[in-house]
């Protein structure tokens, strides 16, 4: 959900900060190695998030809440309740 997407931005920001810190080069080797490991992990997390990223589509029903909206452009039928009839 939204929390996950914000985490992507935060993860990316953290990755940028780690790389900037590493590039400054001004640190003990152990700290550098730790930062490097963290950076690699963050990059992997970012990639995973991007691979998993999708557009969640819903149809607003006035005050009555939302219903899932089937992706009309693709076969992504793994959405629960994909059979919502809109017309």
């Amino acid at each position, binding site marked *: 959900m939204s929390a996950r997407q914000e985490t992507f931005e935060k993860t990316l920001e953290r990755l940028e900060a780690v*790389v900037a810190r590493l590039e400054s080069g001004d640190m003990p*080797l152990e700290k550098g190695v730790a930062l490097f490991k963290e950076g690699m992990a963050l990059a992997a997390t970012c990639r995973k998030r991007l691979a998993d990223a999708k557009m969640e589509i819903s149809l607003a029903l006035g005050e009555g809440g*939302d219903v899932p909206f089937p992706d009309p452009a693709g076969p992504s039928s793994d959405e629960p309740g994909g059979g919502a009839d809109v017309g």
Partner: protein
Amino acid sequence: MAHIFRVGELTRAVKEVLEAEFPLVFVRGQISNLSRPFSGHVYFTLKDAEAALAAVWFRGAQGGATTGSGERYNPATGEVLEPGAAMRLGDGMEVLCAGRLTVYPPRGVYQLVVEMVEELGAGRLHQEFEALKRELAVLGYFEAGRKRPLPPHPVRVAVVTASTSAAVRDFIKVGRDRGFGCQVRIHDTPVQGEAAPGRIAAAISDIGRQGWAEVVVLIRGGGSIEDLWAFNTRAVADAVFACPVPVVTGVGHEVDTTIADMVADVRAATPSHAAQTLWPERAVYVQGVDDLERAAVAAAGRLTTDREARLAHLRRGLSWLSPARRLTRAELSLAALAGRFARLGMTLTDNAGRRLERLTDRLARTIRPGGGLDAEVSLDRAARLSQRLEAACGRIVRDRERSLRDAGLRLAGLDPMAPLARGYSLTTLTRTGRFLRRASDAAKGDKLEVMVYEGVIRAEVTDVSAPGGPGPERKAECDGGEERT
């Protein structure tokens, strides 16, 4: 005599000339006498203030040209046509027709066989559009200064459109591979017809009130100017203007610009373009992550490389300082010193030898027969030195004589006997051998020796008087004398 035509013959001749001369013409005018018989052909008269032109739009030409996939498109612009364009024609409409001129022999009239019709200006609508545009411009609806930037990576997007339209399909299709994941809420509204403006405006207001969305997307597929008319209404313009979050529009085809487009913060050309405008391609993020990862690897590599270089440097320094190396260096410098020493010794003996040779040479020169001149010079010099020595000796002797005389005179002045000549005497207490200065030093019976200028008197003390004037008792008995010089 000129050739006499038959009617058919002349008409055929005219037809040939006309068709050859006007294979394709563009004519603009107003439609009148429009009729649509069951045949499906459309007949009308194009007219302007001066003239009228009969026109027929055959059914087969009404869809425009046909593509391989069966879509109809305008051969002049390439624009894909909505079906039923012919159905929208009406009397009084200003149109541009493309077609060829021909003659219809049965009625002896020439006419335009229409291939394509395009509406022009659309008269009243066009005027309404211009009027609203002027009005809103005065109110500042189009001010560039009030356009808000879109959020860089919107994740909550509200879409106002017909949920079954091609527009929403295009939007989703393009948007799916962009951004890093998002939520899209579709607010279903009609996008044409009487109810459209009010429903669209209400949807936009609702979205603003709910405060969920970061951005509003208002989209609709292509259509005629009437189809798009909802987007040229004051109600929709007001809703877009009042919306608290940025609004992106993508209405119709690229050439269509509606009032809503002009009021919106960002105008996209089409629904697909609206999706492109909202999100960067996901591949861009992937590339960004790849770049960062490469940078991290490079930076970490530099970190260890720097340390390796320092380590190598230190290792070199350490080996330089090792005892074995120091010993080797000491041996080397010892060898060097020994070499220098040996060379120095040789140099010393060499120097001594050379010096000896030089001295030998000089000696040989001095004593050889031709050296007489040197001896004379020496002799002369010795004589001069001898004279100077004598003179100096004389001076010294004279100085000494004078000094001696002076000393004698000074000595004479200091002679203690001198006062005796004038009558003073020196008295010695024999007991102590000392000169007597105080009467109290002597006691009755003491022997005294009194030295006068010439001779000595020996006496004995008969009385001593206390300090005061000289007593008469200090009279000595003289019993002999000794000469003193």
